[in-house]
C-alpha cells in the first residue's frame, strides 16, 4: 500500500509538468495583447517595449515558460498586470474563499445526495424512490445560475432574510468564522450543492440497486444477518465507486464556479478567473489556471489512494 502510494505520487509529477505547460500555452496562444489594458492607447513604441521587457513578454516562448516554471516552483507566480499585486497572494485568497464555499456545498450536497440515493436504491420503484429520483434529476437539470437568482429573489429581495451578494459584511473578501459571514455563505452554498447532490444521488441509487440485486445479499440474509448488518455490507460495497464520484464532484466544486461566483459576487477563483480574462491579465490567468489544474491532479491522486485502500480487489491486483 505504501509502495503503491509512493508510485502514484511519482506518476503525478510528470502529469503536473504537462499540466503547467498546457496552462502556459493556452494562455499565450489566446489572441489579445496583454499590455493593451495597462497602456494608454497613445503609448509610444518605446514605452511599450519597456513594459514588455518588464513582464518578460519580449523573450521567446520556451524561455518565458522555463522562467515562469522555475519561479512557480518556488511559489512565485509573478505579478498581476491589472492590480500590480503578487499573483500568488491573489490566488491564495481566492482559493481560500472558494474552498470555504465548496466545503459547505459539498457537505450539503453529499449528505442529501447520499440519503436520497440510498433511500431510492433501497426502495426502488416505490413512491419514495420516485420522489428522491425526481429531486435528483431536478438537481442536475436546473441551471444553477438561474436557481441562484431565484433564491436571491425569494430569500433576499422578498423575505430579506439573507444577503444577496458578497462574502461578508461591507464587501469583506476575507473569510471569518462568524454569523455575519456565514449568512453570506448560505445562498451560494445551497445553489452550488444542487448539482453534486443530484449526481451523487443518481449514482448511489443505481449503485445500491445493483448491489442489492447481487446474489451475495441473499447470501448475507441466508446467514441470518440483521438488515442493519446487510446495510453495512452494502455501504462498504458502494464506498469505492461513491468516493470516486464524490472526489470528482469535489474537484469540480473546488475549481470554483464562474457562474455562481459571478451571480453572488463571491470573491473566489471563478470570480478571479473571470476578472483576469476580461482584463487580459496573463500572469493572473496563468497562475489561477495552474493552481486549479494542480488541485485536480492532487485530488485525483487522493481519490485513487483512498479507493485502493477501500477496495481489496484493486489493492492486491
Amino acid at each position: 500500500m505504501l509502495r503503491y502510494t509512493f508510485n502514484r505520487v511519482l506518476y503525478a509529477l510528470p502529469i503536473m509538468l504537462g499540466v503547467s505547460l498546457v496552462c502556459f500555452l493556452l494562455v499565450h496562444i489566446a489572441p489579445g495583447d496583454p499590455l493593451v489594458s495597462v497602456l494608454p492607447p497613445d503609448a509610444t513604441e518605446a514605452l511599450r517595449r519597456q513594459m514588455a521587457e518588464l513582464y518578460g513578454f519580449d523573450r521567446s516562448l520556451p524561455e518565458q515558460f522555463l522562467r515562469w516554471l522555475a519561479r512557480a516552483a518556488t511559489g512565485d507566480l509573478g505579478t498581476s498586470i491589472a492590480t500590480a499585486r503578487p499573483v500568488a497572494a491573489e490566488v491564495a485568497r481566492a482559493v481560500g474563499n472558494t474552498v470555504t464555499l465548496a466545503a459547505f456545498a459539498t457537505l450539503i450536497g453529499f449528505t442529501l445526495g447520499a440519503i436520497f440515493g440510498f433511500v431510492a436504491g433501497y426502495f426502488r420503484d416505490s413512491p419514495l424512490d420516485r420522489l428522491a429520483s425526481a429531486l435528483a434529476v431536478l438537481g442536475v437539470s436546473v441551471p444553477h445560475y438561474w436557481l441562484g437568482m431565484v433564491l436571491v429573489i425569494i430569500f433576499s429581495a422578498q423575505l430579506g432574510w439573507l444577503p444577496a451578494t458578497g462574502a461578508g459584511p461591507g464587501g469583506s473578501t476575507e473569510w471569518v468564522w462568524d454569523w455575519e459571514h456565514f449568512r453570506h455563505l448560505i445562498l451560494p452554498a445551497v445553489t452550488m450543492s444542487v448539482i453534486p447532490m443530484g449526481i451523487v444521488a443518481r449514482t448511489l441509487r443505481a449503485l445500491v440497486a445493483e448491489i442489492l440485486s447481487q446474489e451475495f445479499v441473499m447470501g448475507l440474509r441466508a446467514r441470518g444477518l440483521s438488515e442493519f448488518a446487510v446495510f453495512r455490507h452494502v455501504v462498504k460495497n458502494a464506498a469505492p465507486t461513491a468516493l470516486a464520484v464524490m472526489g470528482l464532484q469535489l474537484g469540480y466544486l473546488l475549481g470554483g464556479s464562474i457562474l455562481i461566483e459571478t451571480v453572488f459576487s463571491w470573491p473566489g477563483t471563478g470570480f478571479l478567473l473571470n476578472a483576469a480574462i476580461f482584463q487580459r491579465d496573463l500572469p493572473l490567468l496563468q497562475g489561477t489556471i495552474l493552481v486549479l489544474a494542480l488541485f485536480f491532479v492532487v485530488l485525483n491522486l487522493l481519490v485513487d489512494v483512498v479507493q485502493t485502500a477501500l477496495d481489496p480487489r484493486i489493492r492486491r491486483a
Partner: protein
Amino acid sequence: MAERVLEIRGLEVTFRRGEERIRAVAGVDLTLAAGEALALIGESGSGKSVTLRQVLRLDPERTTEVAGSVRVGGEEVGRLDRRGLRRLRGGRVGMVFQEPLLALDPVYTVGQQIVEAIRAHEPVSRAEARARALELFRLVHVPSPDRRLDAYPHELSGGLRQRAMIALALACRPQLLLADEPTTALDATVQIQVLLLLRELQERLGLAILFVTHDIGAAVEIADRIAVIYAGRIVEEGPVRAVIRSPLHPYTRGLLASRTEGALVKGRRIAAIPGSPPDLARPPPGCAFAPRCSLAVEACRRSVPRLEPFAPGHAVRCLRAPEWAASAA
C-alpha cells in the same frame, strides 16, 4: 422413522411480475429426516431452487405468494417473526450457493464473513469466533487455513471458495444444510472433491442435506433419496438405487437417457427429451410433461395425476407408470 428435520407440505410459490403470475412451485411435498441426504433433481426453471429458498423464506415477500407449509424441526417457517427467521437462517439451517464468487461479499475476507455470521447468532468474542472459523476451515480441509481466512473471495480458487462457503454455512452448527447446485460452477475434478466433502460432513456431523441439482451423477454420489421435480411438482421420488435402476416416470427416464456418462459413443447423438418445459405463467391443465411425453394419452391432458406410491418409499406422478412398469417387467 427418525426425527423430521424438514417437512414441506403442499408448497405453492407464485411470483408476480407485473400482470403476469408465474407459478414456480405448484404443490411440493418433501420430508427430510435427521442425517438424511435428499437430492432434488430438475432442469432450469423447474422450481427446485425456489423450493430450497422457501425453506428460509429468502424470496422478496412483496412479489412472492406462498401457500402450504414448511416446517423446520417442527416449527412453521411461514409464521416466524423477523427475529425467529434470523435465528433460523444460518442458525439451524445453513445454505450453500451455486457460485461462491457471487454469493460471498467481495469486499470482506472470508474469515471476516464467518466471524460475522457466528457473532450474529452467538454472543462470543471476535477472537473466539475467529478460532472457530479456523476450526471450520480445518473441518472442510482448507490447506493453510490461517492464511486463507484472511483471503478475499476472489483470491481463492473455485474449489477453495466453495469450501469456504460450506464452512460459512456450517458456522453455527446447523442440523440442515441447503445446497443449491454447489458443484455446478466447479471444474469436474473439483466437483468430486466437494461432493466427497459434503458426504463426509453429513456422516461426521449427522447433517441433513437438501441438495438441489440438475446433475444426476452428483445426486447419486451424495443422496440417500432422489426427488425429481418438473414444472413445480415432484414427479418421482424414491431411494437412489430404485430411481436410477428402475425409473418410473417418463421424464426421469428421459433424464437418465440424456446423461453423458457412458453414453459418449462416437457417432451417436445424446438422447434428448423433445420439446421444452411449459410456460409457468400458463401451465397446461393436465400432466405438465404430457406435451413432451411419447406415452401420453387423453386422460393425461385432462387433470394432474397424483403422486402414487408404487414400491416402498418409491412414488410416481404418472397415470401410465403401472402399465408401463408391468410391460417392461
